[in-house]
């Protein structure tokens, strides 16, 4: 950090510090550095490292676990996309729970990024008659099909457009991410999202220490505070290392496909080429990168 920058920040601190402290009220995680932190995209390497190490230290204290918070950036020449075969999905919700475990979602209150909707075969995709709360002895239930919905990682995301502080954005590889340290919790993005994909931390998320996934990404599955929005990141901590998202690997019927749109030999390109795909709420022109298809 250069000298004028320090001066500017110190000056701003003295000017705004008191007012801000008053506003902060009940927020306990309030420090000088956090208050004057720059936007994620403007952080220097050193600042980023400091933030990552801070999260790692916090996890050590809280969960007594050595975690790694990575900041693996998007790869050149990669545009991620996802495809889901709704003729195969049986609605077993294995993906929901794999996602919770992989992404350190709150167990109490229950936060789940994937919502599996049960729909009537005779009605087709009709949200008005969708049921996310089906509790059957066995699935698939006769006369029904299943539509799992999570973040669609739209090419033109309505959520990103609506955020007043730029706390959510689309990464170069197409993953829509949130900076949990920048989000003010206004929930504009939740109003803007046509897919109900975003979750707000209405209270402090809880995560049993023995269930912490230590492989974390700073924009992904690292622990979130209360009062911020979170959602599916396509397991950014896995896919940037070349691996499949958790939901893809756990799906017992192999309905979930993931890959690089720019790679002609990828599974996702095969689906787009050989299958008939559709996206949810096409008419809203958010251009999801999440394709549904009929594999049968």
């Amino acid at each position, binding site marked *: 950090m250069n000298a004028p920058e320090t001066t500017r920040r110190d000056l701003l601190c003295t000017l705004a510090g008191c007012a801000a402290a008053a506003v902060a009220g009940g927020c306990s995680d309030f420090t000088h550095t956090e208050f004057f932190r720059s936007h994620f995209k403007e952080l220097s390497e050193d600042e980023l490292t400091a933030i990552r190490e801070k999260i790692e230290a916090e996890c050590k204290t809280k969960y007594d676990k050595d975690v790694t918070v990575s900041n693996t950036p998007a790869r050149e020449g990669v545009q991620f996309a996802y495809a889901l075969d709704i003729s195969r999905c049986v609605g077993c919700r294995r993906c929901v729970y794999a996602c919770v475990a992989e992404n350190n979602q709150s167990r109490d209150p229950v936060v789940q990024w994937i919502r599996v909707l049960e729909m009537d075969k005779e009605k087709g995709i009709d949200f008005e008659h969708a049921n996310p709360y089906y509790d059957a002895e066995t699935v*698939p239930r006769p006369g029904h099909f299943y539509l799992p919905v999570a973040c669609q990682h739209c090419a033109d995301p309505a959520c990103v457009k609506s955020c007043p502080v730029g706390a959510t954005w689309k990464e170069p590889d197409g993953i829509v991410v949130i900076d949990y340290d920048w989000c003010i919790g206004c929930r504009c993005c939740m109003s803007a999202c046509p897919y109900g994909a975003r979750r707000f931390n209405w209270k402090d998320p809880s995560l049993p220490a023995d269930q912490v996934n230590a492989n974390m990404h700073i924009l992904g599955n690292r622990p979130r505070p209360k009062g911020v929005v979170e959602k599916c990141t396509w397991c950014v901590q896995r896919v940037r290392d070349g691996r499949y998202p958790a939901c*893809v690997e756990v799906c017992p019927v192999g309905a979930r496909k*993931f890959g690089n749109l720019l790679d002609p030999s990828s599974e996702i390109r095969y689906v787009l080429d*050989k299958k008939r795909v559709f996206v949810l709420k096409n008419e809203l022109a958010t251009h999801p990168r999440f394709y549904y298809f009929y594999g049968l």
Partner: protein
Amino acid sequence: MKFDIARRLRLAALLAGLALVAGACGRHESSELDLSAGWVPGPDAPTSDSKLHTPPPPFSEGIFPCSECHEADMPVNTKRRELSMAHTDIVLKHDAEHRWCLDCHDAADRDSLHLASGEKVPFEESYRLCGQCHGDKYRDWRAGVHGRRSGNWDGEKSYLLCVNCHNAHSPHFAPIKPEPPPPKPERTP
């Protein structure tokens, strides 16, 4: 004569073992999805060299090699019939009207399968046999689109054989118990 008794004894023992295995597995009326592992987070990328790595075929315990019982000099009855001596646990629900054991299993080489052309196919490559009829599924599977994959989206993937998920004799999946639904939102008073 002595030889014959020994052979019969061995067969009986095998059948008893088979019955035990069959009993343990339950009736194979349809395929059961492998749900053994819940999601365990952590590095688990595959280490195989092959790009088309498949696990071994899911034989019932003690059943392979088939030639253990079906010895070379055992008479082959090619007549389509209800099996009564062995394999009674198998319920054929796979186009049973038109298919029978020896359409896929090779009568001359019991440890092998064969294609319609007569070409022999090892159990490890049974997908070629399946692909004869299910060409579209076979192509999808080879492309990584039919069936479950794990590993790397840009590199090594582990494939599953058709028969790792589908019981060859009864390929349709049985319904399974879903994980619990999410709690409904509740108002704060």
